[in-house]
């Protein structure tokens, strides 16, 4: 039995696969997470996020592939040998220990000389110093979450894994904790791998987001980049809203391809389309679409539709517009004018967008 493995550096997953029987939960994943970054693993429930985390923690061994931190290969080592700690989805606090002993558990096992001080500091960091002598069952969900975080952070792991840590909290508390987690990560400077199915949470917190679907990573990048230029249909729909339509690529026009979406020709920059012939899924984000009563001049990318619904949101107004193709588009207009467009359901409108904002992904 090998002892504790000192390891430092970037986290790397190399062609990691995990199968349960004949079901592949994680399918040949490659990941590189730079040291000290806030990395989000985003995907719908059941896509393999927890399984991926468990393989990094050592609670599950990959069927194939390697897990490394820096140059140290951790594949096959036990959880207690890895410089990795987990904040479990259900917190998994020790019910028989009080809060202080819960947090001190890790340092005690590693016989840290300054266990008491580190425990105090960790409780301080998550603002739970006043609860040190309580039992976990005497805390609220949000407080337990903080304790679970302190219990992991106190060990200064090389990589901290958070499995939907905010999933059980109500919306307001979740927003607060998002800010709080981000603050803590900046303060301690550790690598955070944050698993979530909430795209807003992933985008607001993470430096890098990996979008996962059915055991593989669909796309990885900075939140803004993912939002701006999704490369798969799944990412386009999972990350924010997208107005989409399936088209056939008919032509090119300089830097653009021209696709025919149910009779309407639309342009997509070649550099922003993943496909250049055949079928394409055309997409444009709601806030990139302009709504007007009359056909704008010369824009080219415009479609006439019928307003279905108007929601006034204060800073903006959101419209749902029925398109001739039968789909419904969503448009988001900032209320910059004193007198906004006074549109009602049933009104005919023109939708336009800058061709440079459209994207194309495999249909």
């Amino acid at each position, binding site marked *: 039995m090998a002892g504790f493995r000192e390891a430092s550096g970037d986290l790397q997953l190399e062609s990691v696969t995990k199968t349960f029987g004949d079901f592949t939960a994680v399918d040949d994943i490659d990941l590189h997470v730079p040291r000290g970054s806030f990395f989000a693993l985003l995907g719908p429930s059941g896509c393999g996020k927890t399984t991926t985390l468990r393989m990094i923690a050592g609670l599950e061994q990959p069927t194939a592939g390697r897990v490394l931190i820096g140059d140290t290969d951790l594949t096959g080592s036990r*959880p207690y040998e890895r410089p990795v700690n987990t904040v*479990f989805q259900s917190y*998994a606090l020790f019910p028989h220990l009080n809060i202080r002993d819960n947090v001190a558990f890790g340092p005690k096992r590693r016989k840290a000389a300054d266990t008491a001080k580190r425990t105090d500091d960790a409780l301080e960091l998550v603002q739970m110093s006043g609860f040190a002598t309580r039992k976990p069952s005497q805390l609220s969900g949000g407080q337990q979450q903080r304790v679970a975080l302190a219990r992991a952070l106190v*060990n200064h792991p090389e990589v901290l894994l958070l499995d939907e840590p905010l999933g059980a909290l109500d919306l307001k508390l979740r927003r607060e904790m998002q800010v709080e987690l981000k603050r803590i990560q900046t303060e301690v400077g550790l690598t955070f791998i944050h698993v979530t199915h909430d795209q807003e949470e992933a985008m607001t917190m993470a430096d890098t987001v990996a979008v996962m679907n059915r055991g593989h990573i669909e796309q990885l990048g900075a939140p803004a980049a993912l939002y701006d230029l999704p490369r798969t249909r799944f990412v386009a729909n999972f990350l924010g809203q997208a107005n989409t339509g399936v088209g056939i690529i008919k032509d090119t026009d300089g830097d653009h391809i021209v696709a025919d979406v149910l009779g309407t020709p639309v342009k997509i920059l070649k550099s922003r389309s993943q496909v250049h012939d055949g079928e394409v899924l055309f997409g444009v984000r709601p806030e990139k679409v302009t709504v007007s009563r009359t056909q704008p001049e010369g824009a080219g990318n415009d479609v006439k539709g019928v307003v279905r619904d108007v929601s006034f949101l204060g800073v903006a107004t959101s419209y749902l517009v029925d398109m001739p193709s039968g789909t419904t588009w969503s448009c988001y207009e900032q209320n910059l004018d004193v007198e906004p467009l006074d549109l009602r359901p049933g009104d005919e409108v023109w939708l336009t967008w800058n061709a440079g904002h459209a994207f194309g992904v495999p249909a």
Partner: protein
Amino acid sequence: MTALAHAAVDPGADPAAPAPRATKRSWTAYVLLLPGALWLGVFFLLPLVQLASVSLQSRYPGFPGYYYRDVNLDNYASALTDYAPHFARSFLYAGLATLLAFVVAYPLAYAMAFKAGRWRNLMMICVIAPFFTSFILRTFAWSQILADEGWVAGTLNFLHLLPGGNIINTPVAVIAGLTYNFLPFMVLPIYASLERADPRVIEAGGDLYANGFTTFRTVTLPMSMPGVLAGTLLTFIPAAGDFVNMELLGPQRGKMVGNVINDQFLAIPGGYPVAAALSFTLMAAILVMVFLYVRRFGTEELV
């Protein structure tokens, strides 16, 4: 009792107004408690009072089997002095049986909770199966298994591993019988508490640098303590008062207190008051021990 009467009468106090919700609910609670309270009153409290009164009675000199109402503490004096060795034996044997049952039951319960997989239900049935035959019959069976002609004693004698030459009619046989008979009462609560433990919590031990054994010692075992506590109580209490195992498996001399009580009640004319005093003393001693034990090892979330 006043609360009961009050609550029962209250809804009718003002027939015009509908009874407020809270009153109605507490009334329901008392109704639901009633069968249990009646049962306890008739089958526990009443006999207990009767027994207490008997334990203080005196014999009519010259008329064995007849008593008169009295406050005769000699019965207790006799229980505490004449029968002190029997008490000591009872607690020693019951304690050893509890310890042995724990040693056997914990790994079994652990295996059932964490390792059995699809065999779990079968194992559960095996643990409960002995209850389908009578306690006495099973103990009789053990008296044959452990008999001098039986294969256990035969094998041990053949290997010269049995210093006394026999197992039956020794304290060892009694302790073995007690261990065997009360084992399910140890297994089931421990299994229940292990089974209820969140596997993620046990994994958290590993995640926080505790190896397998340390995780067991610092997480799994403490989390199953309510079950261990319940199991040891459910084993020790009946074992300390048991007389069947001693009767069927034990030696002629050096009986347990349960046998004395049994004899005083059934065999010795005029033994009722002493038997009752012995029963009360046993009950008090067990209560004190259980109290100290729970104080020492108990947790606030008992069982």
